[in-house]
């Protein structure tokens, strides 16, 4: 099985299509979408149509916090409305009943043959904790193992790519993967992989992020895919969404 892991698409159709094309060229035979399909971006319905299509053919799809926000946007009159929740209002208005039903039915986690997929952390998935360091990754792994899941946990949510692995020591250690270079991920060695964000990279490079997990070869490779991010930013401006969302895509921050 060659599994493509795509997370945090955030309604960025251009980035999604670039990653799908790239992954197909790599011979991917299974898809997993780790949540946050919508929010921030200008094309929630087109992205959902694409993902629903793949889900009908067997793709695994999880729910993220932005998907939940799009279903139940915070009140518009709320004085504490953040940029994110403004976007959620707009997204909510775009979705059809079919889209909403699809999002409502999505699970928070998926466990399969030594793999645990989750949007945020396996440590109480419904509270959307960030796996953003060695200790957070450690708690995520401990929870997965305690529930007889894993030992490979694949997560999104943080918008950065990283691999947390266990060597001879007891604790997880962070490793910054080199894009495009397959790394050994033997099935007996516990790890937590943060696959990064397809539709809103935040590490200073606008290129889309995703990863491929190759079960047979026991290797994992993190990819960076250039896409037309200027088009995606222009679409955000056309939709009248906050300017900051557009700038983020242009800068990758």
């Amino acid at each position, binding site marked *: 099985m060659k599994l493509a892991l795509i997370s945090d698409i955030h309604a960025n159709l251009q980035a999604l299509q670039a990653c799908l094309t790239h992954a197909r060229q790599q011979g991917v035979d299974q898809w997993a979408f780790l949540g946050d399909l919508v929010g921030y971006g200008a094309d929630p319905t087109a992205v959902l149509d694409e993902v629903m299509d793949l889900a009908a053919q067997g793709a695994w799809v999880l729910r993220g916090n932005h998907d939940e926000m799009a279903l139940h946007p915070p009140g518009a009159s709320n004085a504490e409305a953040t940029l994110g929740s403004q976007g959620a209002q707009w997204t909510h208005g775009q979705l059809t009943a079919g889209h909403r039903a699809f999002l409502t039915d999505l699970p928070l986690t998926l466990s399969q043959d030594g793999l645990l997929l989750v949007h945020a952390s396996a440590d109480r998935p419904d509270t959307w904790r960030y796996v953003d360091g060695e200790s957070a990754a450690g708690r995520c792994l401990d929870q997965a193992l305690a529930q007889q899941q894993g030992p490979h946990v694949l997560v999104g949510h943080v918008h950065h790519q990283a*691999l947390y*692995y266990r*060597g*001879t*020591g*007891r*604790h997880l*250690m962070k*490793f910054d*993967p*080199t894009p495009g*270079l397959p*790394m*050994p991920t*033997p*099935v*007996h*060695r516990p790890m937590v992989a943060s696959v990064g964000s397809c539709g809103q990279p935040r590490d200073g490079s606008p290129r889309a992020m995703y990863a491929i997990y190759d079960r047979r070869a026991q290797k994992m490779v993190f990819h960076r895919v250039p896409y037309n991010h200027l088009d995606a930013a222009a679409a955000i401006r056309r939709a009248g969404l906050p300017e900051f969302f557009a700038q983020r895509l242009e800068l990758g921050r």
Partner: protein
Amino acid sequence: MKLLNPGHLIDGFEVQACLHAGGMAHIYQVVYAPSEDGTHRAAEFPMAMKIPRMTAGDGAENIVSFEVELQILSVLKGPHVPRFVAAGDLSRLPYLVMEYVEAQTLQHWLDRRQTLAVSEMAALGAAMARAAHSLHQQNVCHLDLKPANVLIRADGSAVLLDFGLSCHAQFPDLLAEELRKAVGSPVWISPEQVVGVRGDPRSDVFAIGVMLYELATGELPFGEPATAAGLRQRLWMDPPPLRKHRPDLPEWLQEVVLRCLAPVAADRYPSAAHLAFDLTHPSQVKVTERGRQTEGTGFWTHFKRWVRASGMAYRPSPVPVQQIEQVPIIMVAVPHHDVSDATLYSLREAVARSLGIRPGARLACVTVISPNLTSSTEADKGETQVHRWHLSRLQQWAQPLDLGGHQTSFHVLESGDVAQALLRYAEGNHVNMVILGAATHGVQMQRVVATVPIKVAMEASCTVILVKQSLPFERLAEVAA
């Protein structure tokens, strides 16, 4: 796993004789198992299978280092490692099948070191340095170089074995851990490895230095420390000069070996390619006090370093490829006929620019002369004179360059085929960048055949800078007028 009998089948391989029964693993000669019709698939090369010895009582380290070796050997390429064939599933049946290299370990040369000429020691050192550099270029540091892990082929080239403690900068390092323990073999381990640094190519330079020291003197520079304090000694201590053991050794060899063994990595050769360069060009080694001394470093120097070293602790090192690209070997081809002053000036400017952005770079100034220049004149005397004339020309050319801190050497090559000579020299010395004039070396022929610069640019495996000459000097006056 207990010893296997010949004829035992494992995943398509048939076990033959046991070649080695070490503490960590058994190594067997293997062939492909016979297929159903009884025919043997012929292997392209002899193969060996390594099976770790693991019993219930074995620590995790044994299996982890086997896992490290499997990960790294399976991606390494080139003539300086055994070719990878296959690996067994670690959780089911761990084994590793690789090329069986017919060669002697370095121990063989250590055993007969009394009969070794200095040139043979240098050749062995250069072979090890080239092999190590080839790993570093693939982002791998060996970190456990020692005589048992170095094979020398009949043609003099080296093959490195046993990657169980190695580090691949682009893979998670399974042997790194929070405690930052020393991982390596006590005799050859570098000072930075003692404090837990893994991934500095200069650690391998250090280990090669230890082996050269033993080849040359029969002594181990730091003995065989058995305690942590004994290991830390190399963080501040210079070993006794080689010439204290053997006064007949040349100063340049001592200079080279002691530079490999400097306690601080920054004081060693910046890359294994630089080391190979010096070992293959002894006459170009710049001998300092380090090479001349016959008495060891004094108490006070050691004491001061000891104080400083007591605070020395783990520090992450940059990725090997980045690190060795910071210290390129730059080669400039200086033509000796059909060349204008303007071209020579532009070449010098280009060299100055390249050296300017790479403070650790080394410079090799090369000129190629035709063999009949020397052979037509009267034998040996004529040859050295011609060479000397060209050498001093090269030195004059380089005079205006600010070469402070840059190791520089001058070479006169003899060949009828200039491009081929330059290419071969660049290849043989791991040159990272060739600088040559765009319209020198045969400008009249440019339209008819590929000229020297075109041929070099197309065939070199490194970066080539073709320098256009600045405005000819004679026209500067016109412009000014």
